[in-house]
C-alpha cells in the first residue's frame, strides 16, 4: 500500500543563532490511506509544526515531505495551493471558519476556488454537511453555530471533494467531551473511507480513536504505538511498539 503522507528526516528550526528553536529534529513518518494517526506530546514538542509542514503551510528547514508521492519541495506556491484545495483538508482547533460565509458556503469554498461551478460545489458541500449531521445549519453563519457545530462544519470543509489527507490540529480543543468524541468518530469514519488522517491531540482518550499514536518530545519522534483495539485501549495497554 503506497503512502499518502511521508516525512523524511524533516527538521524545522525557528530563528537563528542563540535564540533559535528546534521544533522538529529529523522526523520520519509515513501515513497510509485509511490510516488515522494521532500525534501526542507535551506543549512545545513540535506537534503543530509537524502538521503544518505536512500540510504545506510551512517549509521544513531540512528533509523532504511527500504528499501522494509528490515532493512538496519541488512545488511552487501555486502548486501547493492547488494541493491544499484538492488533496489536503485542514481542521483547526479554533475552527477557522470564514465568518462572512454561511456554513454551506464555507464548505463549498475550496471547490469553488478550484473552479467548480457554484451550484455543483454547493451540492457537494451539502452532501458533506449531511454526512456530518449539520445539514440543517447550512444557511447559518459561523457566529450562529455552537462549538460542536462549527467544528463539524470545519471537518466537512476539510473532507469535501476528493480529499486524500485530513490534518487536524487539536480539533477537540475547544469542545466538550461529548462533542470531542463525536469529532474523533467522524475523523475515524472519514479515514475508513480511504483518506489518511493525522490528528494532534493532548488527550489519550481521544488518541485511542487513531490507528496509531505517535509521540513527540523536543522535536523528536520518541515513540509510537501500534493499532489500539478500542477507544480506551491506551489507558489499559502497557507496552508500546517502537517504530
Amino acid at each position, binding site marked *: 500500500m503506497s503512502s499518502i503522507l511521508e516525512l523524511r528526516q524533516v527538521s524545522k528550526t525557528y530563528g537563528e543563532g542563540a535564540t533559535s528553536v528546534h521544533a522538529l529534529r529529523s522526523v520520519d513518518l509515513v501515513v497510509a490511506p485509511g490510516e488515522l494517526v494521532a500525534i501526542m506530546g507535551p506543549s512545545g514538542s513540535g506537534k503543530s509544526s509537524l502538521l503544518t509542514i505536512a500540510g504545506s503551510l510551512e517549509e521544513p528547514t531540512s528533509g523532504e515531505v511527500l504528499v501522494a508521492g509528490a515532493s512538496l519541495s519541488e512545488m511552487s506556491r501555486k502548486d501547493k495551493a492547488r494541493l491544499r484545495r484538492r488533496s489536503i483538508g485542514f481542521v483547526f482547533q479554533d475552527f477557522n471558519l470564514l465568518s462572512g460565509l454561511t456554513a454551506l458556503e464555507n464548505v463549498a469554498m475550496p471547490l469553488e476556488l478550484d473552479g467548480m461551478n457554484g451550484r455543483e*460545489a454547493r451540492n457537494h458541500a451539502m452532501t458533506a454537511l449531511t454526512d456530518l449531521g449539520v445539514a440543517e445549519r447550512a444557511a447559518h453563519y459561523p457566529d450562529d453555530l455552537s462549538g460542536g457545530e462549527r467544528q463539524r462544519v470545519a471537518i466537512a470543509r476539510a473532507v469535501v471533494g476528493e480529499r486524500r489527507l485530513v490534518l487536524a490540529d487539536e480539533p477537540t480543543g475547544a469542545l466538550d467531551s461529548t462533542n470531542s468524541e463525536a469529532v474523533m468518530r467522524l475523523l475515524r469514519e472519514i479515514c475508513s473511507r480511504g483518506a489518511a488522517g493525522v490528528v494532534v491531540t493532548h488527550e489519550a482518550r481521544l488518541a485511542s480513536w487513531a490507528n496509531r499514536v505517535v509521540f513527540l518530545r523536543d522535536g523528536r519522534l520518541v515513540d509510537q504505538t501500534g493499532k489500539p483495539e478500542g477507544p480506551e485501549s491506551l489507558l489499559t495497554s502497557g507496552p508500546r511498539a517502537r517504530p
Partner: protein
Amino acid sequence: MSKNDGPSGPARRAIVRWAWRLFQREWRQQLLLMALMTMTVAAAVAGASMAVNASSFGQDDFGDANSSAQFDVTTPEVTAGNLAGARARFGTVETIGHRSVSLPGSVKPLDLRTQDPNGTFGSPLLALRKGRYPVAANELALTRSVADLLGAQVGDRIVLDDVEWAIVGEVENPNDLKDEFALTAPDDNAVVDSITLLFDNRDLAPRSGPPAASDANTEFHLGVMSRGSDGPVAVLVLIAATVAMALVGLVAASGFVVVAQRRQRQLGLLSAIGATERHLRLVMLANGAFVGAVAALIGTVLGVAARVLATSAVESAANHRLGRFDLPWSLIIECGLLAIVMATAAAWWPARSLSRMPVMAALSARPTRPRPVRRSLAVALALLGLGVGGIAAAHPTDTTVRPVVLVFGMLGAVIGVVFAAPAAIRGLAVPAARLPFAARLALRDLVRYQARSAAALAAITLGLGISISVVGIAQANEYRADDGNLSSRQLVIRVGEVRTATDPNLTAAERASLDTHAATVAATLGKPTMYTLDVARNPTDATIREPVAQAVQTDPHSFRFVSYPFIATPELLAHYDIDPATINADTDLLTTRTDEVTLLDFSPKSVEGPAPDASNRVQVVDLPSYSSAPNALITEAALSRHGWVAARAGWLIEMDKPLTTAQIAAARSAAADVGLAIETRSTQDSLATLRTVATTSGALLALAIVAMTIGLIRSEAAADLRTLTATGAASHTRRTLTACTAGALAVLGIVLGAAGAYAALIAGFHSQLYKLTPLPFAELLPLAVGLPLVAMTAGWLLAGREPRTFSRQTLD
C-alpha cells in the same frame, strides 16, 4: 475542475461574494474609510476645478477672436489706413475705442470705452448687470467700481470730460472683473485715443506667450497678439490632478492597510484551504474597487456641488465670471476615474504583502515585524532631494517655468514624504521608553503596527503639506504689509497728478486756501490724522513742475527713477518716530534704500538735462516702503543747501480702520468739488480667505484621517482594551491611550507636512525667498498647536467607554 490556477469564473465569484460579506460585516470601518475617501475625492474635484477656473493666463482680452491689435490714434489717415488694411487682411474686424478722461477727484484716469455689445468678437467682453446698454449719445453705462467711485447710480447724471452724461446701466467685462471703464454707445465717429482691433487671424498658428518682435505686421503698423495655447492650463490640470490623486491614493492606502491587517487571519485561512496569491489579492482589490467607485461617484458629485455653490467666490478669486456649470468636465471625469484606480491600487499594495505572507504567520494574526527603516529613510532623502531640486530647476515663479520638471519634482517630494513616514513612526520608540504606561503603550503600538501607522501618517502629512503650501504660496503672492502704493488705512489728497506740485511761489493765503480744501476732503472721513506733504522744487525754472526725485544712477548718463521724496517736516519725522537729533547735519536724503541713490533735480543746469547733485548725502532710516507714502524724506537743511523750496504736493491721511468704498467715494466727490484728487490703495483681493480655507481644509482632512486611523486601530485593539480593562485599567488609561495615539500622529503629521511644504516652497521661491517671510504664524500656529490638541481631546473624550463584551466575541 479547472486546471487554471488564476481565479476562474466560479472562484472569482466566490471570492467577490466573500469580499462583499466581509464588507458588510465591517460596515462601520468601511463606511469610515468610504466617507474619508469621498471627502478627499470631493476636495480634489472641487480644488482642481477651482484651480483651473481661477487660471486665466492672459486669455481674457480676445473675446471670441483669436487675435487682437491695438494702436494709438494719431492722424485720421493712419487710423483709416490701419483699419482698411486690417479688414483687407483679416476680414471681419471689430473695433473698440478707448478715450482716457480724467476722473474728477481721482488721480486715476477713466477709460471711456466705445464698444458694440453685440460685436462679432467682443460680446464676451461685455455684460449688462443692471439697466440697459447706452444707445444714444451722452448715455453711459458704468462698471460697479467706477459707479462706486463716482457715487453714481443708474438714472443719475454725471459730468465727465466737460460733458453731461446720463447713466443708463451697469456693465462689466465678464473676462476681467477688475476692468474699470465707462461704456458709451457704439459710434464710428467717436473721438478716441486708441483703438483695439479684434479679428480671427486664421493664418497664424496659436502660440503662447507675448508676441515676438517678428509679429509686428509692418504692412499695417500693427503689433498682432494671438491667443495663446492652452498649455499652461494643461500644466495646471496635470499638477492639480497629480497632487489630488496622490492624496486620494494615500488616504485610501492608509485605510486599506488597516483593513488588510484586520483580515490577515481570514486571508491566512483562505490560503490554508487552497487559495492562491491571486485569490487573496482579489479579495482586497474587489474591496478597493468598490469603495473607490462609491467614493469617486459621491465625491465627484459633492465636489461639483461645492464648486457650483462656490461660484461667486471662485469668480472673485479668478477675477472673471464663470457659468454656474462652467466646469472642467474632462478633469472632473479624469479625477473620478483616477480615484477608482488609486483606491484599487491602494488596496492592491497591502493585499500583495499579505498574499506573500507565510500562511502560519497570517493565521497567527500577529503584526508583521516592522521593516528596517534605514533603507526607506535613504530613499526618502534621495527622493526629497530630487524633488526639491526638480522644483527649484523648474523655476515655477518665472515665465520660463518647466512644467514637466515641476510635476516630477512635486511627485518626488510627495513620494519622499511617504518614504519618510516609517522612519518618523519608528522615531516614536525613543521617547516612548520614558513615558507613563498608557502613553508608552500607545506609541509602541504605533511602532508595532508600523505599516498602517506610516500609511496614515503619510496621508496626514500630505494633507497638511498641501494646506501649508497653499498658505505659503498665497502669502508669497499677496501684497506684503508694506507693499503697494498705500496701506488700506491711508489716503493721499493730491493737488494734481503725482508728478506735479503747486507753484512754489504761492502766497500764504493761497496755501491756506489749499489746506482748507484738503481739510474739507478729510472731513468726509471723520476726524483722521492729516499730514501735509511738501516736495522740493527748484524755483529757478517755473515751467518745470516736476519735483526733486530720488533716483539710482544706472550708468554715467542715465538714471532710474525711484520716487519723489517729501520734505522731512517735524510733523512727519515725529509721525515716523525719527528723532531729528539723529539726523546728521549734512544729510540731504533720509531713505530706506541701501543702494546708491541720489537726488535728481529736473531743473536743468545744463543743456544735457537733469543731473544729480554729487554733493548730497544719504542717510538710511526706517520708513514704510509704500510707493505713494513718504518712503524717502529730503531734510530741511538740504533745501537751503541746494537752493530748493518747498512746494505743496498733497496731504497724507491716516485712518484707524481701513477705508470703505463709501468713504472713498465721498472723499473723491469732495476732492472733485474743490479741484483736488485722491489716491487710495490699489486693490488686491485679499488672499486671507484662501489661506483660511486652506488651513481649515487641511486641518479637517488631517483630523478625519486621524479619526479614521484611530477608529480602525481601536477596533483592531479591542482585545488589548479588554485585557487592559480586565487587569484593572480605568477609563483614564483607555482615554490616555487613544489621546496619545491621535496626538502623536497629529504632531508627526504637522512636523513632516510643514517641513516638506517649506522645503518645496523654498525650492520654488529660491530666488525670492523674502516673499516667504515672515512666516504665516496666524495659520501655522493653529495647525501646530490646535490640531494635536483637538485630536488628543477628541480621542480623550471618545475613548472612555468600557469594552462592550468580554465573554462573547464575534469571530474574526
